[in-house]
């Protein structure tokens, strides 16, 4: 289209509305450029700059929240980005997770003597990609965000260069992720072929205004299939999950935490943008596929999690099971996608993402501490006697695990309840019951970790885990948030409700 225009009109750029993204990019550039030109910064400063950047970006998104609720939603930069509470909520989720991960990474790197700006810069770049995915109103832009996120993650997964498993994990993720990106891009191309646009607003208009001629529909359907494959890979939904356990286990634990939180949140935001917002006209076509992905992820994730003996691997499989849970919410959102009044599907998914991100970073932070004190061992045995050595740390881990299991008065319960409620409201009873039964199977896995932690005595020779300040701070904040939301979820649910009014 642009090529046909005689005069290229630059779109207006709403700088203030873009400020979270700008903040993240500037933080990354600051770390990269200034960090490369100056001698080593004082201890912890890299991490604090990264954490501060994430906090500022999150705060900016928070400030813009009222702007949206007061003045309504809009699109930015010529319809490329959506400016709505959906985008804000994903931005806040990603920034919160980045903030926590930066704190955890600080101790991890300094202890290993590898402190430097690169990892933090990559975190911020990946976060930028995630935010772009969550706010994209154009499939091409969404792809750009996806690649920005993914490329940073490939490098991050391999960032512990001395450990072969980390390198292996990076390569594996890169090769498989490249495939998935190709699928996704081809999907965009086919949808473009069917609708003559990559802009989400224009895609919808094309469905509303044009009568589909023979063939075009097939293009869109094939495109949807490929998009689902690409996104299914990114969220680690079964059967596109095979990379997850190896990559999660091999990557440095703080990076795993980042992948499980930011990666997942961004990818699910993309799923909602692409399927629920851009392609509601085909909701009856993609919803069954999501149904199958959800059920497979729930069952396979939970069952395989139970038989693992390595805690990182367990949490990797459990993240697959959680992806299944979130897909239940997507399925629920699919029932009334595109309608004037939306159900609880979308809010429940976004709530789940926020709560799960905090939970999973907290869990992996504890795992990182335990692993560090005994030479990188993350097997169940390493957790034996943790309660005797570090009762508070064990308590925090227990809170995270109980929350992941969905026990009441934790945020995990609110997350699960929201998704199940959304599904039941759309009368998807079968998937709701399957999800709950899978949650019980998964509960066994969390119980196994708790048994090791509390009920089994450790070796006397085991070193007492050191809990450095910034990691301790991150864990405390995550645990407090988990309990706070469990007891007083009203305000968050209220806020999440507004995402049903989205820009396009």
């Amino acid at each position, binding site marked *: 289209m642009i090529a046909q225009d005689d005069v290229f009109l630059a779109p207006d750029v709403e700088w203030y509305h873009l400020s979270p993204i700008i903040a993240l990019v500037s933080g990354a550039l600051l770390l990269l450029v200034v960090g490369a030109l100056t001698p080593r910064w004082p201890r912890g400063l890299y991490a604090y700059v990264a954490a501060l950047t994430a906090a500022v970006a999150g705060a900016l998104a928070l400030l813009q929240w009222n702007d949206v609720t007061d003045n309504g939603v809009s699109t930015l930069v010529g319809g490329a980005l959506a400016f709505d509470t959906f985008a804000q909520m994903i931005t806040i989720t990603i920034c919160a997770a980045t903030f926590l991960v930066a704190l955890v990474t600080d101790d991890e790197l300094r202890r290993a003597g590898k402190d430097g700006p690169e990892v933090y810069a990559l975190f911020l770049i990946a976060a930028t990609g995630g935010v772009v995915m969550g706010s994209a109103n154009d499939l091409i832009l969404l792809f750009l965000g996806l690649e920005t996120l993914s490329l940073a993650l490939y490098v991050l997964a391999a960032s512990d260069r001395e450990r072969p498993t980390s390198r292996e994990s990076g390569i594996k993720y890169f090769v498989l992720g490249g495939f998935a990106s190709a699928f996704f891009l081809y999907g965009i191309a086919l949808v473009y072929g069917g609708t003559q646009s990559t802009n989400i607003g224009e895609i919808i208009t094309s469905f509303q205004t044009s009568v589909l001629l023979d063939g075009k529909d097939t293009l869109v359907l094939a495109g949807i299939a490929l998009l689902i494959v690409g996104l299914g890979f990114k969220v680690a939904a079964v059967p596109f999950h095979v990379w997850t356990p190896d990559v999660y286990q091999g990557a440095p634990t703080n990076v795993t935490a980042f992948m499980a939180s930011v990666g997942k949140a961004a990818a699910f935001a993309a799923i909602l943008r692409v399927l629920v917002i851009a392609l509601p006209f085909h909701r009856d076509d993609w919803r069954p596929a999501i149904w199958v992905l959800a059920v497979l992820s729930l069952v396979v994730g939970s069952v395989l999690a139970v038989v693992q003996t390595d805690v990182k691997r367990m949490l990797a499989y459990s993240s697959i099971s959680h992806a299944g849970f979130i897909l239940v919410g997507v399925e629920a959102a699919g029932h009334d996608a595109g309608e004037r009044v939306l159900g609880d599907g979308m809010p429940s998914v976004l709530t789940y993402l926020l709560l799960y991100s905090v939970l999973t970073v907290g869990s992996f932070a504890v795992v990182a501490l335990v692993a560090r004190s005994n030479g990188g061992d993350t097997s169940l045995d390493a957790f034996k006697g943790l309660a005797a050595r570090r009762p508070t740390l064990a308590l925090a881990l227990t809170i995270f695990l109980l929350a992941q299991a969905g026990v009441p008065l934790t945020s995990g319960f609110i997350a699960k309840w929201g998704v199940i409620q959304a599904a039941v409201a759309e009368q998807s009873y079968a998937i709701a019951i399957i999800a709950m*039964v899978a949650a019980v199977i998964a509960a066994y896995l969390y119980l196994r970790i708790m048994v090791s932690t509390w009920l089994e005595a450790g070796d006397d020779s085991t070193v007492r885990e050191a809990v450095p300040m910034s990691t301790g701070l991150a864990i405390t904040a995550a645990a407090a948030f988990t309990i706070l939301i469990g007891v007083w979820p009203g305000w968050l649910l209220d806020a999440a409700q507004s995402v049903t009014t989205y820009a396009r």
Partner: protein
Amino acid sequence: MHGGTLAFPILSMLVFVPVAGALLITLLSKRRPEYMKLVAAVSSIVTGAMSVWLVAEFDGHATGFQFVSKHTWIEQWGISWHLGVDGISLFLIVLTGVLFPLAILGIDPHNDDPARDKPYFAWLLLLEAGVMGSFLSLDLFLFFVFFEIVLVPMYFLIGGWGYEGRVQAATKFFLYTMIGSAFMLVSIIATVFIASRNGVGHVTFDLVEIAEHASFAASTGRWLFFGFAVAFAVKVPIFPLHTWLPDAHTQAPTAGSVVLAGVMLKLGTYGLLRFGLYLFPEASLWSRHLWLSLAVIGIIYGAIAATMQKDLKRLVAYSSVAHLGFIVLGIFAVTSQALTGAVMQMVNHGVSTGALFLLVGMIYERRHTRQIADLKGIQAVAPIFAATFMIVMLSSIGVPGLNGFVGEYLILIGAFLSARWYVVVAATGVILAALYLLWAYQRVFHGEPDDDNKTFAELKMKEAAVLLPFIGVIVFTGVYPKPMLERIEPAVDALIAHVETRTGHVAPQPTTIVIDEVTHEEGEG
């Protein structure tokens, strides 16, 4: 709503006092274990005192819920902190309130490391709060929260302070109950949404509102009911979902067994009444033959299995399966007397089985075995201990003059009106109960003590002080059940009336009315 004028939110305090105690304990220094027990004792005694005060203040003639406390909790989902008590839950609350201080004061957790006292008492108090909350909740969400949350402290109590197979038993207990709850959760949400479209008009989790206004299509109601019923059937446990119970009871520490048998199993039967019969009268009646059959199977099966046990604690555990069968029989007989008996029997079973577990715990402390074969002739060396055991056991069998008789008798005559042939079979369960308990008593207490049992210590003052309240309740309720019955009956009658207006089913009239008239005339003459 009587008692609603009370400025003091007593029901909320019943939940919050134990929670506050638990929090305080976690804040105390672990170097001062003696304070842990003190705090635990004080907060549980305060809770117990409040629950007893509740009975005194309770208006026995009123139907409906009293002392209601209602505050919005999660507005978006129509969820509120809604507590209330009626004749059905009243005595279960007292039972909880009284049982916990006894378990906390009377049972030594045997921690090698005094620092372990801290989590032990904190978990017990949290458990008390959870159980209280479950009995008090009048909001489906709130009930689910409490119903689920009790699993966590119980899991840690069994897993941390139990016997050899504790980890496996605790895990089994947790997962079994959670599987049931999974169905209930979906059912709760579905109930709320379907109710909001059929009669209620808005999304609310309020039990009373849904029960009074919602009208479910028959098939819908049945599905929803089964979602709830599965969770409760696991908790009760109803045959064939009982297999977690013997393990959990046997492996749990004494305090755990006492609480588990005393109050936690009642969450299941209470749930069947409150969220089965009250919420889904049509479905409950429609499926009653299933429940009656399973109840009767449970009675007979539990009794036979108990007879076969070599382990005294396991025997008591299986006897619970049989006794809970009676309660389920009473619930699904749906006559005034049977329901009254069922409610009463919930309390009686808590008292007598709780006491039995205490006594078995004392035997284990002395002899470090629970095998019946290892015990012999204890009566000769410890007659008071034996006598106490005898009284509790007779109460469990249901001998007239003790509390067990009143409940069981009411269930049997009440159920006879509506489910005659089930009662015929169930009545043999009474005889079987006498068989397995008396036989066990005979093997353990009669005969000449061998060398190992010669030194069996007599009941200590402290132990006697813990057991005395149990014996007192057993005898008092057995001789004079009226104060209890007259508080239970109005609530039960209201429930039956609710079922009758909702379904058109007419509960068979109790024949005692005639007897009342006769005695009345005699009194005048």
